[in-house]
């Protein structure tokens, strides 16, 4: 049990308070973008390219315009007149809103049909005739830099090939020296496949431009409403949509996972059309469009190497990455971090030498990539380090748990400087792995495995002991398009002691309406039940960078605590005034100040707040409000120890995850129920890419699984019964000692599963399997090795 400082009535930190936001969702009264219906609203549907790479010869909208209800067909040429046919990506690359001459990926937006209802818009879409001149697409990133590769981005000045950027971290020469002299070097090539966040709500918007007021209200599925408002003003300021004329409202969001950070062409077209016709335009993509055209995640090809001494002491790692960004770099990373936080890839281990480099290239695939419930490319990095750690254990014949214990950064080595320049704030990796091993009975499982192997059965045990890096970020390093990555909270307490607090973040299911209230309750002693939380409206909320990369608790959560502390300081002054004592004579307990040594003389927070409106000291500002913009001094470094047990059927090669124990450390816990819920969900999004999900393209550029029929999101049957637990190592620099957690399990689970499967197959000489590891892949691998011939 977690010790709580506040009563259940106050429900500050550590209480498993039931969620305040649940009632509306349970009663069907949530308000998602597609639920918005405005007077005179028109519907938009989008004509998309069947080809991955083609010249547009002609777009003929004649038949479409004859359909009753169809009002207009908008093409790139139309937008070009207003210079709105291109837009910047968050990575300062450029992306077509609608093409004027060439399409660059299958399902790319080609034209928009505006109609009086959804069905007419879809009819219009079917009737728009587009004549293409198909070209041979470039689908293999490994061929992007070939001499005969087509130049995909001649639109970019100075672009002479398909290379986007080169990035490196660490020390190349020192690493090479260690590798040259090491006893043991292990290598694997691994592809972290292209996947899709596939939140159950797709993306969409209602763009509502008021011609009289010259004002745009944009209801939009966005995780970062303020940043979007600024981007709209930057892109459309020249046509009069300056920032004070733009209001972005992010209503209830049906899951984000990073996919609702970017600006997609559909949003921009809707704004442009609403601007031109002066009517609200609704655009909601369908699932297939969502899977086929919206930002993908991952797609890193990694050559990973690890050097060690003969006892298994890790000495150095070297990762070389080829990043397939598709047609444009539309990643959602902080500006100065083209590979996101990939350089966390030295992991939880104590060694001083590493080198990482990455090259990004263009191909004829949809642009990206976003995070898929991961803090900026951390999943890719963690997969590499955790797979290689197991690979080393296999190479030298040491138990992978033992190898990890011998290499972990020790508790007293924090703050720890990593060889790629990070300063890990805190951690206790030994405690986490010990707890996980105890919970799953690791020793017993290894004994069982020996017996099973003797009978020819395939059972595997896989470990992942990862370090996450979340909470971007210190403004000295982190920005998006120049806007620093702080976040904000504004607390306003009403005379009767009830409050409203507003934030620059935006929940998409994380439970902010409950957890932020609990943070304020912890600091002020006002019951969390009495604190209303509001996010997602740029007209009312303080500026913030939004919710993604597990940053809300590390940034806005901290801002809430800091703003509340400002109020507690004010409360103390008022209490001293009311009790006629000096501030030094007061002591605080959650919900009241009392006089030291005379506890019967006290004032509750509610009495103090009331006095701030009715009887505040002369000279003091009236009211009870505070705002804080929190700029974190460092990121937070949550960690976890995960152990997975799999059984693989000898004949069908079906893989069954028998058990999965996840021990997470996210520092101090605000709401155990919600943290556990986040871990469960993240784990299912961890098993997904490990065993099921991958966006697959053929050589002609066709997506082969662009619907929910064949893109395999795990159901309740595939998803194991997760067993979870925690250790607590507070963040020393965070005001409430908390770290982010929502993405840890998605980051940590895939290598645990892959390690378990490889462990099961290692008796047949297998050293690595590419995710998603399917029964067919296992069967092929065993077939190749003649395993079935022997029987």
């Amino acid at each position, binding site marked *: 049990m977690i010790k709580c400082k506040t009563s259940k009535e106050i429900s500050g930190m550590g209480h498993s308070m039931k969620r305040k936001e649940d009632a509306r*969702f349970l009663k069907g009264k*949530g308000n998602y973008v597609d639920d918005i219906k405005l007077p005179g609203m028109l519907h938009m549907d989008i004509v998309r390219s069947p080809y991955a790479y083609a010249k547009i010869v002609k777009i003929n909208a004649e038949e479409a315009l004859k359909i009753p209800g169809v009002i207009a067909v908008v093409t790139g040429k139309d937008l070009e007149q207003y210079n709105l046919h291109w837009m910047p990506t968050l990575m300062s690359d450029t992306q077509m809103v609608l093409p004027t001459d060439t399409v660059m990926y299958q399902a790319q937006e080609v034209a928009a049909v505006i109609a009086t209802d959804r069905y007419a818009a879809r009819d219009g879409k079917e009737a728009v005739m587009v004549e293409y001149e198909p070209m041979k697409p470039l689908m293999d990133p490994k061929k992007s830099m070939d001499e005969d590769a087509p130049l995909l981005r001649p639109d970019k000045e100075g672009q002479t090939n398909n290379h986007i950027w080169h990035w490196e971290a660490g020390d190349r020469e020192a690493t090479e020296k260690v590798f040259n002299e090491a006893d043991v070097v292990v290598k694997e090539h691994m592809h972290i496949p292209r996947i899709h966040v596939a939140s159950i709500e797709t993306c969409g918007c209602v763009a509502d431009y008021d011609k009289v007021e010259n004002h745009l209200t944009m209801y939009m599925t966005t995780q970062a409403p303020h940043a979007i408002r600024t981007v709209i003003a930057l892109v459309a300021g020249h046509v009069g949509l300056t920032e004070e004329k733009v209001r972005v409202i992010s209503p209830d969001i049906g899951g984000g996972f990073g996919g609702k950070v970017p600006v997609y062409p559909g949003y921009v077209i809707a704004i442009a059309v609403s601007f031109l016709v002066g009517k609200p335009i609704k655009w909601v993509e369908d699932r297939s469009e969502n899977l086929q055209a919206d930002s993908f995640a991952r797609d890193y090809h990694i050559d990973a190497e690890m050097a060690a001494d003969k006892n298994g002491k890790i000495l150095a790692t070297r990762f070389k990455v080829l990043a397939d960004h598709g047609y444009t770099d539309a990643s959602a990373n902080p500006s100065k971090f083209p590979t996101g936080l990939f350089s966390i890839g030295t992991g939880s281990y104590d060694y001083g030498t590493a080198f990482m480099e990455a090259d990004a290239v263009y191909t004829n695939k949809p642009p990206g990539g976003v995070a898929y419930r991961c803090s900026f490319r951390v999943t890719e990095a963690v997969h590499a380090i955790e797979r290689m750690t197991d690979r080393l254990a296999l190479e030298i014949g040491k138990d992978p748990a033992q190898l990890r214990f011998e290499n972990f950064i020790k508790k007293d080595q924090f703050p720890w400087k990593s060889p790629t320049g990070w300063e890990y704030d805190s951690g206790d990796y030994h405690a986490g792995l010990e707890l996980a091993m105890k919970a799953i009975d690791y020793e017993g499982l290894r004994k069982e495995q020996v017996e099973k192997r003797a009978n020819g059965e395939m059972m595997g045990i896989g470990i992942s002991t990862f370090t996450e890096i979340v909470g971007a970020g210190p403004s000295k390093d982190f920005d998006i398009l120049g806007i620093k990555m702080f976040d904000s909270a504004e607390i306003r307490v009403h005379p009767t002691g009830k409050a409203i607090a507003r934030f620059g973040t935006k929940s998409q299911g994380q439970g902010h309406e409950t957890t932020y209230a609990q943070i304020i309750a912890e600091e002020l002693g006002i019951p969390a039940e009495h604190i209303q939380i509001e996010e997602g409206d740029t007209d009312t909320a303080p500026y913030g960078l939004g919710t993604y990369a597990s940053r809300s608790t590390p940034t806005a959560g901290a801002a809430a605590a800091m703003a509340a502390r400002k109020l507690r300081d004010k409360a103390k002054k008022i209490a001293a005034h009311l009790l006629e004592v000096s501030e030094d004579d007061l002591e605080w307990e959650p919900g009241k100040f009392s006089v030291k040594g005379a506890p019967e003389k006290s004032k509750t927070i509610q009495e103090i707040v009331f006095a701030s409106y009715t009887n505040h000291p002369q000279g003091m500002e009236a009211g009870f409000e505070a705002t804080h913009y929190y700029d974190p001094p460092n990121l937070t470094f949550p960690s976890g120890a995960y152990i997975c047990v799999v059984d693989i059927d000898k004949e069908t090669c079906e893989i069954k995850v028998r058990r999965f124990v996840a021990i997470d450390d996210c520092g101090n816990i605000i709401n155990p129920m919600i943290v556990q819920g986040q871990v469960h969900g993240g784990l*299912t999004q961890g098993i997904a890419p490990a065993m099921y999900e991958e966006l697959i393209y053929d050589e002609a550029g066709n997506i082969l699984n662009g619907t929910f029929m064949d893109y395999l999101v795990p159901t*309740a*049957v595939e998803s194991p019964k997760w067993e979870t637990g925690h250790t607590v190592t507070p963040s020393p620099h965070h005001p409430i000692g908390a770290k982010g957690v929502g993405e840890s399990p998605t980051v940590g689970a895939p290598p645990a599963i892959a390690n378990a499967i490889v462990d099961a197959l290692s008796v047949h000489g297998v050293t690595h399997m590419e995710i998603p590891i399917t029964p067919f892949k296992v069967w092929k691998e065993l077939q190749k090795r003649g395993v079935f011939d022997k029987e």
Partner: protein
Amino acid sequence: MKNEITITVNGEKHTAEVENRLLLVHLIRENLALTGTHIGCDTSNCGACTILVNGKSVKSCTILAVQANGKEISTVEGLSPGGELNALQEGFKENHGLHCGFCTPGMLMRATELLEQNPNPTEEEIRWGISGNLCRCTGYNNIVKAIQYASAKLRGVELPSTEPDFV
């Protein structure tokens, strides 16, 4: 081509003239403004649009409004007419069976029929029973717990603990 249909939704009778091709989910969401029923895919895989038609759970994107003519329909808005959460809704709240809430109405409607057919399902029966409904947020553990809680409540037996087993 339009046809007049009459359907009863959450006990209330509605008559509408609809195009033959109109999907039931669009009738419910747009004509009747019952937006609790959601749309999450275009291939009848996700189950966000699940409703009850004459007591049977149906993905309302797979049937036409005209096919529902004369039928009794229940949507999430009809689960707690008195305002108090019903046993399933309470189960979801008490066990944190929802995060973003988008799949929740479909899950609730599917689970309603599941518990009617099988008042005391095993965990495996629940998992198979909701396998036509996708949730991207929760990892399903707590949805299973929520349905077990509702099952206990409806059968009048001792309620399982709702404390998170997060030790």
